[in-house]
């Protein structure tokens, strides 16, 4: 049961093979057993989960169930959920119980009737690529518990990889869905910016953040995405895009598909073992009828520096609301107001968050704004234009998701630049606002390798199709860690 796809679980629920309460209990029990070691969840509330499952069973019995009603999922702890502690991986919000639902939570649970298994661990305020910046401690990679699961959606990735949940949500600002998906052998999708509402999703970098699904397969991601999307008048950057069924094109054959291979993604800086798996995937796509096109994204080497100006700039402002005045952490002892601010924020934020706030405040400050922030915005436009050019000659772009497989816990924790470079292939996609995926494409040294697929704006259905056909021909995505029964 724990290895079933969402479609199979929906079938099992529909035929009363299992109830939502039974299914949810199964996963809750697995969480209780494995989470103390993996640390994938930061909040589990058995009572709340089972109440949601019972309500789903009522809907199923009444015949008012949607396609995913009763299926349990894990929510990244960046989504505000009414009555749930919503921490964003930070001491600052360790005691914050949200009084309202994020749009994604409302859609998936209240509307679609899915069941929340709990809130998953994450890098603090989604700032990190290893889940080591979480106030609640690092998450272990189920494939090798001495290694990181990736980040920032590391808890979600570990939870799904260890089958503590059939699927999960993530958010992706510079690779935070795709990189942990790659490191944990999952399928993850970052949609076009504006497709999934950001309302209630705690902001890291507003112009880059985008929520999306993390699951075992492209098909599961398509079904999840169907429940997450839609124009939201509460999010001014939400796009009024017609509703579509992301699963509709899954089975389309790939004959004639033009896959763009950017030379910048196939040069130095990527582990040879990772590259070998990617090359093997390209060969598989050719067997499936696709052709490859050599393309160039000439400004992609500027994406990491531009990102580390724009994202911290926005974050420095977004995180100003965590001031100890209205909610969240406040330093216990302080003198005057300034002292309260300084102590609260010094104690409430971790080192990586503080580093990015400082960078962000610096690049926005008088005298530096033009040289850093405006320059980064210009680069951002150049990067977006590179993709526009590239998509004139190809349908999807392919490359590695991350330059290496999962690294050791603590290995890069002391070197922020090395850590930042693990997102070198994913960041440009966020800067351009494009949809991107990571799918399992093999193993190197026993560790999963992720293949990145990048689509044009609103090409999610096409991406899912490209991923699904590959997953019909390969079984990488069905592999599980040896100790996961």
């Amino acid at each position, binding site marked *: 049961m724990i290895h079933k796809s969402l479609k199979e679980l929906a079938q099992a629920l529909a035929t009363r093979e299992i109830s939502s309460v039974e299914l949810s209990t199964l996963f809750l029990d697995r969480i209780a057993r494995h989470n103390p070691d993996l640390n994938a969840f930061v909040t589990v509330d058995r009572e709340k989960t089972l109440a949601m499952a019972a309500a789903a069973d009522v809907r199923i019995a009444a015949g008012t169930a949607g396609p995913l009603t009763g299926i349990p999922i894990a929510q990244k702890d960046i989504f505000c959920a009414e009555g749930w502690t*919503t921490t964003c991986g930070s001491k600052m919000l360790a005691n914050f119980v949200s009084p309202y639902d994020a749009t994604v939570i409302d859609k998936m649970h209240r509307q679609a009737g899915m069941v929340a298994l709990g809130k998953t661990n994450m890098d603090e305020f989604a700032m990190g690529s290893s889940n080591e910046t979480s106030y609640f401690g690092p998450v272990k990679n189920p494939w090798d518990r001495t290694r990181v699961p990736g980040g920032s959606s590391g808890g979600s990735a570990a939870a799904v990889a260890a089958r503590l949940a059939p699927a999960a949500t993530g958010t992706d600002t510079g690779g935070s869905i795709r990189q942990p998906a790659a490191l944990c052998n999952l399928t993850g999708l970052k949609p076009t910016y504006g497709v999934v509402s950001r309302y209630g999703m705690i902001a890291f970098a507003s112009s880059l953040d985008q929520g999306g699904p993390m699951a075992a397969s492209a098909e599961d991601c398509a079904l999840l995405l169907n429940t997450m999307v839609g124009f939201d008048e509460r999010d001014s950057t939400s796009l009024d895009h017609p509703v579509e069924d992301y699963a509709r094109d899954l089975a389309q054959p790939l004959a004639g598909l033009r896959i763009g291979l950017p030379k910048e993604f196939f040069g130095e800086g990527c582990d040879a073992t990772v590259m070998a798996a990617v090359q093997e995937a390209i060969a598989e796509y050719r067997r499936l009828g696709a052709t490859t096109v050599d393309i160039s994204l000439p400004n992609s080497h500027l994406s990491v520096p531009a990102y580390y100006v724009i994202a911290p700039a926005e974050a420095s402002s977004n995180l100003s609301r965590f001031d100890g005045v209205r909610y969240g952490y406040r330093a216990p002892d302080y003198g005057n107001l300034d002292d309260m601010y300084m102590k609260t924020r010094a104690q409430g934020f971790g080192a990586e968050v503080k580093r990015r706030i400082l960078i962000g405040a610096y690049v926005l400050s008088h005298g530096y704004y033009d040289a850093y922030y405006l320059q980064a915005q210009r680069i951002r436009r150049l990067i977006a234009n590179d993709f526009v050019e590239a998509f004139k000659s190809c349908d999807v772009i392919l490359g590695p998701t991350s330059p290496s497989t999962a690294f050791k816990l603590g290995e890069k924790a002391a070197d922020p630049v090395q850590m930042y470079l693990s997102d070198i292939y994913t960041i440009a996609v966020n800067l351009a606002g494009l949809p991107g995926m990571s799918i399992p494409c093999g193993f190197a040294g026993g560790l999963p390798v992720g293949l990145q697929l990048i689509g044009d704006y609103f090409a999610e259905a096409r991406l899912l199709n490209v991923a699904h056909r590959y997953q019909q021909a390969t079984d990488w995505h069905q592999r599980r860690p040896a100790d996961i029964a």
Partner: protein
Amino acid sequence: MTQWEVVIGIETHAQLATVSKIFSGASTAFGAAPNTQACAVDLALPGVLPVLNKKAVDCAIRFGLAIGAQVAAKSVFARKNYFYPDLPKGYQISQMDLPVVVGGQITLQVGAGDKAYEKVVTLTRAHLEEDAGKSLHEDFHGKSGIDLNRAGTPLLEIVSEPDMRSSDEAVAYARALHALVRWIGICDGNMQEGSFRCDANVSVRPKGQAEFGTRREIKNLNSFRFLKEAIDYEVQWQINEIEEGRKIQQATVLFDPDSGETRMMRSKEDAHDYRYFPDPDLLPLVIGSDWIERVRGELPELPQQKRERFISELGLSAYDAATLTASQEMSDYYEATVTVAGKASAKPCANWVMVDLAARLNKDGLEIAAAPVSPQQLGGLIQRIADNTISNNIAKKVFEALWNGEAATADEIIDKQGLKQITDSGAIESLVEEVLAANPVNVAEYRAGKEKAFNALVGQVMKAAKGKANPQQVNELLKKKLAV
């Protein structure tokens, strides 16, 4: 001795009269219990996002059209970052590089009577922004309370060029702006509640010097009187400083109405770096011509247009037209009066509204909207002057009686009190003859060339007629008889 020239520019925050806040659906009503009108967005809970209230944009467009400004096709909301407990997000959403309204001008009347002159003040810009909450420092046993009801209330910040050259011009500008925003219905103008507040940038320079002096900004002036007092004090202070050999340092100052002095709040050195940048949660504000035209169609006749019409259609002087269009209430009152009294009486109507009514309102401390005498009553009264039923002097008595609610119309009072003017020349002639016979001394004096004696005789006739004789007829008859 150096002659000093004063240079003043004014920034005004006008609270826009929308039902809900600029980026949330919470109510903007004044006076609710603290923090009862602050929703998740106003509280800046984690994850919430702003959504622009289009009604606030309507207000900005209205203002732009009313001052002949350019309404920007594209403007951008920016974040102004600073920490303060009543600023929940740690930044204020405002507009910086690209404001919604650019340029424009306001024509104002400075001074009164013969010394009155017209002045055109150019506006730099007007932009939309959100207000902060309030910090309450009393009643919390040494702690401060925060009320976020006001947080997110829409403001239009209106910035003038440094065009004013005296505190009188500054006050005239503020009054004209105050009247205009109320006129076009975008702000209730309630200064006590903080709906309309001014910051004055003040500097002085030797007359004839081209460059401006160093300015100091006086913050948060919430009455016209404080605006004038603060500027007058500040100007004198700056002149004294310079004359005593000190340099003015750029600074922000506060005005203390009790002492009548300005005092430094912060110098330029400790000015914040607000780290403005475009708000990534909001798309650029794009205003198409259809939006502008819709708003234009909803605009009332503007003061300037009304002023021109009063001059061309009603034959008023520029000064009268300007005075009567100083507020919508006043011009409405005046126009309703003319409707009853007739266009031929447009000038007397203007005098009654500007002089008699204004004086009486002033005496009782009333606003024109609360005048006990309605425009219909006043118009009826002016009709009776025009058709010679009563004299101007009697009319003043009738007006007072109307003011005191003694009757519903001027006609009733004239009837009840028997105030109808005597125009029968026979009756007046006999009164004149009686007075001449009874006052030989005055007659002799007049004939000896003393003009004053004539006035005494007129007074005697009017007294005998109990004030009701037509004064013009009295004059004519007296002159005729005395000439014999």
